[in-house]
């Protein structure tokens, strides 16, 4: 698994920078770079505070008036939050997990791809250990390995005419200095017209163990 993620991402110039970011940041703001945008996604934030990994973003395509923050069942020291965005009609997603729990969650999650069976993008073999969590009727998937953290949130990317996303869109996640932290993917529907959603991949080259030890 280490090799799969690493090979996919060592083509990137900034793996070391990402590890440095994790070691030094205190909830650093990051944004999607290169002027490209994932439709319906705003305000992406990621960072590590007090040895906890935080990932959050706003989905404009999902509008909830009532939200929940709960511990992720079956996963130690991890929470997920889906709540109405204070400043818009959108919905804020927040994930947090202790780095120690990320490394030593003590469970062998099944190696799987996307919930609809398609392979994970930019992952050799297309699979990572996956853990699903439900909030109301929304099933989200977390991908946990020693080398990468991923989230899949099922979302519909429909334009004003109700037409779905025609192709996959991916955008690098960069910090303020332009260091590449990961990638966000807007995944179109499959041939059954289901399975569209947002996939966030944050590989940590060098391993989360190094981060904890330091």
């Amino acid at each position: 698994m280490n090799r799969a993620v690493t090979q996919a991402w060592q083509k990137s110039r900034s793996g070391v920078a990402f590890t440095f970011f994790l070691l030094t940041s205190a909830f650093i703001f990051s944004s999607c770079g290169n002027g490209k945008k994932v439709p319906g996604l705003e305000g992406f934030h990621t960072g590590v505070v007090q040895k906890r990994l935080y990932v959050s973003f706003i989905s404009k395509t999902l509008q909830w008036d009532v939200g929940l923050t709960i511990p992720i069942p079956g996963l130690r020291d991890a929470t997920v939050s889906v709540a109405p965005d204070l400043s818009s009609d959108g919905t804020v997603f927040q994930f947090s997990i202790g780095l120690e729990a990320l490394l030593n969650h003590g469970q062998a999650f099944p190696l799987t791809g996307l919930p609809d069976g398609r392979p994970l993008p930019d992952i050799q073999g297309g699979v990572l250990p996956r853990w699903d969590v439900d909030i109301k009727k929304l099933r989200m998937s977390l991908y946990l390995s020693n080398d990468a953290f991923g989230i899949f949130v099922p979302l519909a990317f429909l334009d004003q005419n109700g037409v779905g996303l025609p192709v996959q869109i991916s955008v690098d996640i960069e910090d303020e200095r332009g260091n590449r932290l990961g990638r966000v993917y807007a995944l179109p529907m499959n041939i059954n017209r289901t399975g569209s959603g947002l996939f966030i991949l944050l590989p940590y080259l060098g391993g989360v163990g190094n981060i904890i030890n330091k």
Partner: protein
Amino acid sequence: MSKSQLRSPKTQVLAILIVASLGISSCGKGSNKNVLIDGVDGPRVNFVDNKLTMSVILKQVTIDFGLRIQIPKLPNSYVEVGPDFQSAGYMISVGIDANDLKALTHDGFNTLDPTSLPGGRPLPGVVEGQMPGLAVEIPKWHNLAFYFGADVFGTFVPVKLPIKDVIGTFRFYDGAGDRIGNISVVGKDANDKNSGFLLLVNLHGKVGQLIQL
């Protein structure tokens, strides 16, 4: 209770049921009515004399003293606490002056430390999970906190709630039924502390116009 016990399926189901009951007492999309919190009357938000006021009555709290204090860094604003004679509960009233808000939200809020919920959990409904904030210490009443973002004013009011680990977040409406922010019912954290409710008011739009920000 150990962490593993708290994460047990039974506890999780209980927590979700409690929050589900909270959800039932809210009125859903489009009804423009606020969630009802057990043991709490309010909060209510009003705009009087260029002040944003928030008042809430804690029905299950009895403290036989009252006081009014100035909020640090907000010279024209106050927190007032005391017995509520109508309900035998305890009333908390907050008045935030528009000039203080202008000074903090436009210029000075970056002088405040980034603050999350008491105990360290991220602020729900805020993508950054934290905002510039300050704590106000009231005798026998800990962890009253205020938050000031570029377009946000918020307060966390500590209340003992029979909820653990779970936070429910709802849109919050003023008396006219207009959405002006979010309210979160915050269950106890892993240390069995820091329950209460979090009210975040969006100062962009109606509220900003009413208090002439």
